[in-house]
């Protein structure tokens, strides 16, 4: 482990000395929610800047921020803001994480395509996830049990749900926790009793998106703050970005460059 670290440091040293010249590598790590955005933007970035190679991997927001704290990555992707405890740890280790909002994520409740329910209120959503509404007929749907599908309590998507829908109250233990948005999509599309929630990028014809309080979860309603379950997505750098990192962040935030690809990846761009 120590050996690997030394090796990584040596590599970093070499790339610093080389500056922006050919062969520089920028490592990006973190949230799997932000990953598709950075991959899309990264492809375009590498075409425009052939001298810089991006090494992108997803290991979760927590791991990304941990890597920023440890200095093992240049850019961390995160679907949540950094926690106080993480800032404290970073400052103790002599690094100062700088956040950049790169896009918005809009989280939409979804049901099976055969479900007749079209709209749901935040109150009803909360009651379903508290385990208080157990049958679809209680909210005007068919007489079938509700199967509640949620994300793991440590995922960034869950955190948004927890904040915006649950108001920090606990999801009841009978909810089926899935480890990824892909798994939620899979379970909801195959179970006619199910309700789940997905980022706007995961919506397609195989699941039915519900409107919340009569508002459709789309790009427009996210940007004008009407849709109640939306959040910004971030990247973090170790200290104020310089060199290649700065070039990349600027590219990412550019309305005609990076942000254009954000939309292609199925997320909501900043402008």
């Amino acid at each position, binding site marked *: 482990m120590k050996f690997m670290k030394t090796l990584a440091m040596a590599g970093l040293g070499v790339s610093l000395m080389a500056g922006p010249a050919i062969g520089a590598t920028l490592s990006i790590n973190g949230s799997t929610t932000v990953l598709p955005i950075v991959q899309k933007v990264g492809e375009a970035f590498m075409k425009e800047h052939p001298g810089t190679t991006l090494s992108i991997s997803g*290991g*979760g*927001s*927590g*791991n990304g921020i*941990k890597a920023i*704290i440890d200095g093992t990555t240049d850019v961390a992707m995160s679907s949540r803001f950094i*926690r106080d*405890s*993480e800032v404290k*740890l970073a400052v103790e280790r002599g690094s100062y994480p700088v956040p950049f909002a790169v896009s918005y994520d809009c989280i939409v409740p979804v049901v099976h395509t055969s479900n007749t329910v079209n709209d749901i209120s935040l109150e009803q959503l909360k009651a379903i996830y508290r385990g208080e509404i157990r049958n679809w007929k209680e909210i005007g749907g068919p007489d079938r*049990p509700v*199967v509640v599908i949620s994300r*793991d*309590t*440590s*995922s*960034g998507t*869950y*955190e948004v749900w927890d904040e915006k829908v649950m108001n*920090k109250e*606990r999801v009841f*233990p*009978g*909810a*089926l*926790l*899935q*480890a990824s948005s892909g*798994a939620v999509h*899979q*379970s909801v599309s*195959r*179970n006619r*009793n*199910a309700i789940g929630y997905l980022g706007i990028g995961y919506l397609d014809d195989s699941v039915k998106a519900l409107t919340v309080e009569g508002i459709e979860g789309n790009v427009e309603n996210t940007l004008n703050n009407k849709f109640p379950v939306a959040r910004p997505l971030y990247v973090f750098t170790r200290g104020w970005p310089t060199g290649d990192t700065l070039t990349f962040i600027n590219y990412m935030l550019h309305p005609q460059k990076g942000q254009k690809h954000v939309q292609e990846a199925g997320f909501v761009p900043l402008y």
Partner: protein
Amino acid sequence: MIQKRHTREKVIRLFFFLAASISILVLTLISLFLFSEGLPIFSEVSVSGFLFGTEWYPTAYPPDFGIFPLLAASLAVTVLSALISIPLGVMTALYLAEIASSRFRQIVKPIVELLAALPSVVIGFFGMVIVAPFLQDAFNLPTGLNLFNASLMLAFMSVPTICSISEDAIFSVPRELKEASLALGATHWETIARVIFPASLSGISTAVILGMSRAIGETMVVLMVAGGAALVPGSIFDPVRPMPSSIAAEMAEAPFRGDHYHALFAIGMVLFLFTLAFNLIADHMAQKHKQVGAATL
């Protein structure tokens, strides 16, 4: 010349000693790491509160670290899968070793063992996409991702282990015992049930325990098909969340060296102690009931 040979012998011996130590060293280091990362949680929650607490809300404020639903789920999944896989595995082994022709055996045994080579993610995917909708429709359940589905998939995975080791044990029962039994007028069935099966019982027990320890530690399948609800199961069709799936699903997002992180390692410790116990029992049985030579006079 003799001196040189002697040195060479020593070097070779040392080389093999080192090779043997490496795996022990690695195991020791991993266990040390596991315990040093897991034990700090017990300053937050008592051991009994951890093992028997029924609320698992590691990211809530304040958090609850009760793993009883996870523990119960792991045990339920393991026991139910054993109930399916033991009869299947042992009967297959008896058939292959005693009844099937040797040509048939040579074809079928590798096929059964090939089942063990199926990646667990493939079995999990099968359970999720094929078995879950089927169970849901057939039994009119709210969800097909449940305890029964997970046990069924785990049984598929432990059958090859149980079958293969049992078959070896049955096949190595001394020929004299079988011949003596037949010579005394016992039928083939009586010989299998009263002589061969008891004589190979220690091998079969070892096989069963190893199969079960595979089931309790298996992660991918339970992550995909067990449903993931942290509830103490009340029926075999309830969704559950066994220990390995909790670790796998939550570890990536748990803040480094936070309470949640330590709690997940502590679950790892519990899991490690379980598989260790299973392996010790298996080893003990294999030693105690070892068939030493044929009982011929």
